[in-house]
């Protein structure tokens, strides 16, 4: 497998299209203003190559907002498709999804599903994993920045563009990186939730807003900012899925992902980002003798946090030392069946 990426910080797709060599799958990330145009431009140039696209900020070993990026993967067997109406019924197109999984001869060791979603991420992941989990196939992806995705030249809203990718020459593994750790051993049981609004009414029976404000001694207006330091974590067995806080709403809190009644939450605090990033690199190096490519989705909150701490450049350089490293800044991340916030999710091809 070989992964190459090409980017134009000025957003000039034409200047990089000619550089793409052999490709079995193409991913494109660009801005909303140019999305439809560049999706067509790409498809016109490579009509026979499976292609999925989304809106966001592309990066390789550096990031310039407003650019366009292309990822070309060769030495893979890929099938691209779309799940429509993902806010209400992503299962609508599940048969085609299954067909695409079968089409690439998917295997848990060498196949990954890469997805770009604009709709109900959790519902969409549940639909895809209903099929993928049968074969142990992993998934990574993210949420579109501006609600648009594309598959093979066609633009969709309220849809999930996916590519089933089998590495013909090596293995595949997905990772997630969490900068946060539990503050302590306290647990908060969520109740009074509204899944459609990503709303939490109460924590351990008390109004969620006051619980959070009292915990950190902050006024209501600082709740949205506090998520950079102290988001929630949903505990699932040994895993913790970060839930970012969006804003207060009445006596409760609105988040960036769904919270359900009886979800067990904990409060998180930021760790040492340098140390954690280094651990991720070490873990990947430990798992892979040779690395063909790394494709990663970094949450917008991480992007802002790294910028604020003058760490973004250092981070991208560090990850680029693994090999061909690229990805985009998204509004939410996907890691197998988890829809998560403030996280990095990536796939590594061996």
């Amino acid at each position, binding site marked *: 497998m070989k992964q190459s990426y090409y980017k134009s910080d000025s957003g000039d797709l034409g200047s990089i299209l000619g550089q793409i060599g052999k490709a079995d799958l193409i991913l494109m990330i660009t801005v909303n203003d140019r999305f439809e145009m560049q999706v067509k431009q790409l498809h016109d140039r490579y009509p026979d190559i499976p292609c999925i696209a989304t809106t966001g900020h592309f990066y390789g070993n550096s990031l310039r907002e407003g650019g366009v990026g292309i990822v070309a993967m060769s030495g893979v067997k890929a099938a691209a498709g779309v799940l429509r109406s993902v806010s*209400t*019924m992503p*299962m609508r197109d*599940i048969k085609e999804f299954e067909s695409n999984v079968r089409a690439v001869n998917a295997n848990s060791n060498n196949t990954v599903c890469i997805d770009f979603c604009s709709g109900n991420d959790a519902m969409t992941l*549940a639909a895809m994993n*209903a099929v993928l989990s049968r074969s142990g196939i992993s998934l990574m992806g993210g949420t579109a920045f501006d609600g648009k995705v594309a598959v093979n030249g066609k633009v969709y809203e309220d849809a999930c563009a996916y590519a089933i990718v089998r590495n013909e020459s090596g293995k595949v593994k997905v990772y997630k990186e969490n900068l946060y750790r539990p503050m302590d051993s306290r647990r908060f049981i969520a109740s009074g939730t509204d*899944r459609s609004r990503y709303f939490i009414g109460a924590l351990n029976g008390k109004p969620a807003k006051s619980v959070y404000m009292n915990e950190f001694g902050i006024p209501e207006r600082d709740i949205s900012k506090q998520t950079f330091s102290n988001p929630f974590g949903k505990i*699932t067995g040994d895993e913790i899925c970060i839930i970012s806080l969006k804003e207060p709403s009445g006596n409760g809190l609105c988040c960036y992902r769904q919270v359900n009644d*009886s979800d*067990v939450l904990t409060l998180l605090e930021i760790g040492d980002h340098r140390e954690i990033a280094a651990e991720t690199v070490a873990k990947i190096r430990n798992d892979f003798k040779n690395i063909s490519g790394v494709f990663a989705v970094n949450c917008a909150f991480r992007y802002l946090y790294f910028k604020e701490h003058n760490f973004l450049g250092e981070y991208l350089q560090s990850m680029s030392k693994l090999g061909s490293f690229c990805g985009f800044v998204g509004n939410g991340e996907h890691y197998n069946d988890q829809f998560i916030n403030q996280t990095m999710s990536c796939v590594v091809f061996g």
Partner: protein
Amino acid sequence: MGLFGNKKNENNNVTDQYPLICIANSIKESKKVLAQKEVSSLEELRGIQDSFDAVLLRDEELKQKMDHFAEVFGSVGNSASQFDNVKSAISSSVSDAQAHMELLRQSSEAVKADFAEMSGIFTDLVASVKIIAEYTKNITSIADQTNILAINASIEAARAGDSGKGFAVVATEVKKLAEEIKEMVTQVDASIENVNTYTAKFNESIVKTTEALDKNMTDLDTANRTFDSINEAAGGADTVQMQIAEAAGDASAELAEVSSAFERIGEQYRTVSDHIEKASALGTTKSVLFENIDNMADQIEPLVKLQSGN
């Protein structure tokens, strides 16, 4: 035909219902997993109950041991506090006292010996004074004879007339001298009398002091015998001490058992804690399944509407 059966009509084919079938199967699968996890949770909870029953049983055993332990150590405390330190202190004090008494005895003996020597010296002194008194008697006698001679000399000198005047003067002087000697002797006799008086008194004191010393020695002996009795009695406390040690040994054995009981309780608590940990972890995983069931079930209505053309 049922909702998920192979309903055929001219406009819709079998595959229209496929998503619904998929959802139904997914829900069934989730429910099956959920049921298994629920069973596991109940087993964990039962484990918790069993562990706590064992904890309560151990706790009762511990309570009884603690009650008995308290009694035993109560008696140990009383006895030990009375005998142990006091015995050591007594023994130490007795040793010190007897050592000091021995020094006192030796000093008294030395004093008695000194007084005996002094008494001997004063006896010699008295003898010497007696001799002096004898001598003074002789001196008085001689002075009297000298006086008589001086009188006789004066008489003869008077008989001699002028040639005897010088001799009369001498005789007068001799007479005066004899008188002065008698006066001195009288004074010496008075001094000798004083010496005799003081010597008698001193001897009396020496005798009294010697008697007092003797009494002291007798008292020392008595005290020493008393201290020996004390030591003997203190030694007798060894028996009590052994009893105390035995009781303390029993208490220690009980304490060891208590400690083992605590250890067993600790193991039970740890087991309970493990069960709770596992139950909690299981509980958190169920929330994912609930979310998946909700997300799948929520799609049924819009899919049905889509397929029915609404």
